[in-house]
């Protein structure tokens, strides 16, 4: 019984007011203020330390508490300094003019030039607010943690992380040099950082991230736009469209329901499962993209490209780098130079050009959809290799200037015209018209290995 009584006494909340407590090397001051319970928005300005905003418990009064520590001076000086610190609470009119619907809460410190030079201090602010109150918070030099808001939240912070959790509304964060993390937000999220790592988890609306030199990770969002520089960008589970502008950043994007656009370079790109169109503009890195339901455009400059399983048409261009494209359902345009260009199981029309590198094409079914198609191949110096299935329906029309034609299939008709050698062969009704020209390189035709 005594224990219970002691626990009950200890549970009683502190009264409104202020208190000074001296500890061994420093001194603390606590200021508490009750807040109006009927406001729609809280506008909070705090400096020199962290700020926490939580939902006030049922039956309790909304309140604010400022805790300040000071050290580095003698006790009277610390005391005098701490006594000048305060927490102001005022009612203001809302933007729509409705009187008293905004609570303005501000931690107050003595002017900089009135602070003893040797004195150090830090201040933390805790707010217990009704869930429905929207929040506009400006803070500096500490972490900001906001949990459980039923309205919009806007936070500006400097030199401190910002963490927002469980917000039914939109969130906006502008943070300098601190990490930003938001989770379980029903609305949209605008997250701006100066060298801020950004994590956004389960955001129902649009997520817009602008940061620099720090990693970005988004898992679960309505739609996304990310701008970053130098550090990685990771997107997973985006219901709608996603756009990433991230030079020098490794990019990973998986399970994007809408279209995906990436502008990047000098680092790798991994893409898996895009519901609509994929567009990549890139240079000097590796691109591995697969599972695109719509069209795909991959423009790389010195980028190794592997593109697989595209439902629509595809356009792939990358100079001086190996390119492999497989399983394109629609029309395919592919171009590279100096390295191998490999195309596997193209199901539609093809226009491919390889300068200085080998152009290799393979089919396991030709045509895969039973329809008529045109395939035009241009090679230069590196040669062209064709691998055809047993039951191919194709009409070959091959020309090699200054090279040779080597056909493993019987029945090809050859013609020599100066330095140019031509060969024609029709197989299985010739539904696919394949026209290949190679300057300064050989053309080889063979059966695809039995599967």
């Amino acid at each position, binding site marked *: 019984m005594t224990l*219970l009584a002691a626990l009950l006494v200890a549970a009683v909340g502190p009264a409104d007011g202020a208190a000074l407590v001296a500890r061994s090397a420093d001194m603390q001051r606590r200021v508490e203020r009750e807040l109006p319970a009927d406001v729609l928005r809280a506008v909070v300005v705090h400096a020199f330390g962290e700020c926490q905003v939580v939902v006030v418990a049922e039956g309790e009064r909304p309140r604010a508490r400022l805790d300040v520590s000071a050290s580095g001076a003698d006790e009277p000086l610390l005391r005098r300094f701490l006594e000048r610190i305060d927490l102001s609470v005022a009612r203001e009119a809302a933007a729509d003019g409705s009187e008293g619907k905004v609570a303005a809460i501000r931690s107050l410190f003595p002017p900089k030039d009135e602070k003893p030079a040797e004195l150090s201090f*830090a201040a933390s602010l805790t707010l217990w607010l009704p869930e429905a109150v929207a929040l506009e918070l400006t803070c500096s030099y500490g972490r900001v943690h906001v949990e459980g808001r039923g309205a919009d939240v806007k936070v500006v912070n400097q030199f401190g992380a910002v963490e927002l959790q469980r917000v039914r509304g939109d969130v906006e964060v502008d943070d300098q040099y*601190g990490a930003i993390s938001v989770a379980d937000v029903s609305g949209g999220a605008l997250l701006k950082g100066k060298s801020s790592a950004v994590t956004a988890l389960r955001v129902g609306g649009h997520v817009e991230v602008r940061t620099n030199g720090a990693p970005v990770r988004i898992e679960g969002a309505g739609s996304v736009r990310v701008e970053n520089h130098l550090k990685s960008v990771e997107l997973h589970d985006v219901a709608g469209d996603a756009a990433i502008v991230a030079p020098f950043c490794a990019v990973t994007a998986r399970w994007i329901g809408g279209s995906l656009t990436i502008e990047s370079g000098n680092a790798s790109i991994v893409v898996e499962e895009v519901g609509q169109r994929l567009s990549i503009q890139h240079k000097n890195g590796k691109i591995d993209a697969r599972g695109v339901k719509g069209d795909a455009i991959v423009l790389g400059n010195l980028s190794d490209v592997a593109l697989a399983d595209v439902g629509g048409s595809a356009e792939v261009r990358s100079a001086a780098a190996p390119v492999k494209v497989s399983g394109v359902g629609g029309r395919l345009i592919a171009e590279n130079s100096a390295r191998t260009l490999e195309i596997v199981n193209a199901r539609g029309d093809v226009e491919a050009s390889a300068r200085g590198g080998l152009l290799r094409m393979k089919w396991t079914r030709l045509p895969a959809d039973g329809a008529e198609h045109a395939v035009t191949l241009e090679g230069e110096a590196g040669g062209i290799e064709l691998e055809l299935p047993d039951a191919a329906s194709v009409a070959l029309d091959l020309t090699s200037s200054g090279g040779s034609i080597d056909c493993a299939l019987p029945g090809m008709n050859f013609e020599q015209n100066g330095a140019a050698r031509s060969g024609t062969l029709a197989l299985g009704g010739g539904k696919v018209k394949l026209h290949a020209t190679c300057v300064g390189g050989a053309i080889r035709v063979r059966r695809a290995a039995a599967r």
Partner: protein
Amino acid sequence: MNSPDDAFAARIDEAACSLPRRAPDGMIERIRERAADLGSSIETAARALAGPAPLDALDLRIAAAARELKRPAPRVRLPRTQGVRRIVLRSAVALAASIAAAALILPRLLRDEADDAPPALLTSAALARSLSDEALLDREAKLLQASVSGDAELVADETAQSLLEEVAFLDEAIDECRRALELSQAHAHLREQLLELTGRRVELLREAQAVGRSGGGAGGEARG
């Protein structure tokens, strides 16, 4: 108005008082089961009142106590005197009441305890260590900066230039952080930030230097 604890105690007392002098086998067991059910109701109510606070330790204690209450009676024959029965039942009541009270009160105590931590300032020793670490990082940054500035190849390298732009950006942040620290030099959070920023600057300069040594850009290597 009676508290849930009082109501619970009254119901158990009522059940105990209504026992016949020589209760048949199984009756005590049934009452224990009843007590366990009531204990479970209290636990549910207490959890609802306790709210979502992350009270792992309390959760464990509640779960252990609940398990204890819900455990079937041992198969030994208990002495069937009213006094012993009352002791057993009252113990169960006391335990359940303590759990309920703790569940009501501890969340608030623990929350306040967490919030009660005063904002951190570095001790003199910790401040000296922080300043020394910062000086070390600064020295390393200066050496790296000199090496990078003297590397003519880096001027033409896109990756290196991008890294050096980021270094300039961090220099600005470090200056801002130092200005803030002039107002509160033992501010633990700002000191930590300054060390982090200075460390990041060193890391970037090392990357830029490595680009110079390898004689080219990142060439497809993933960053971040």
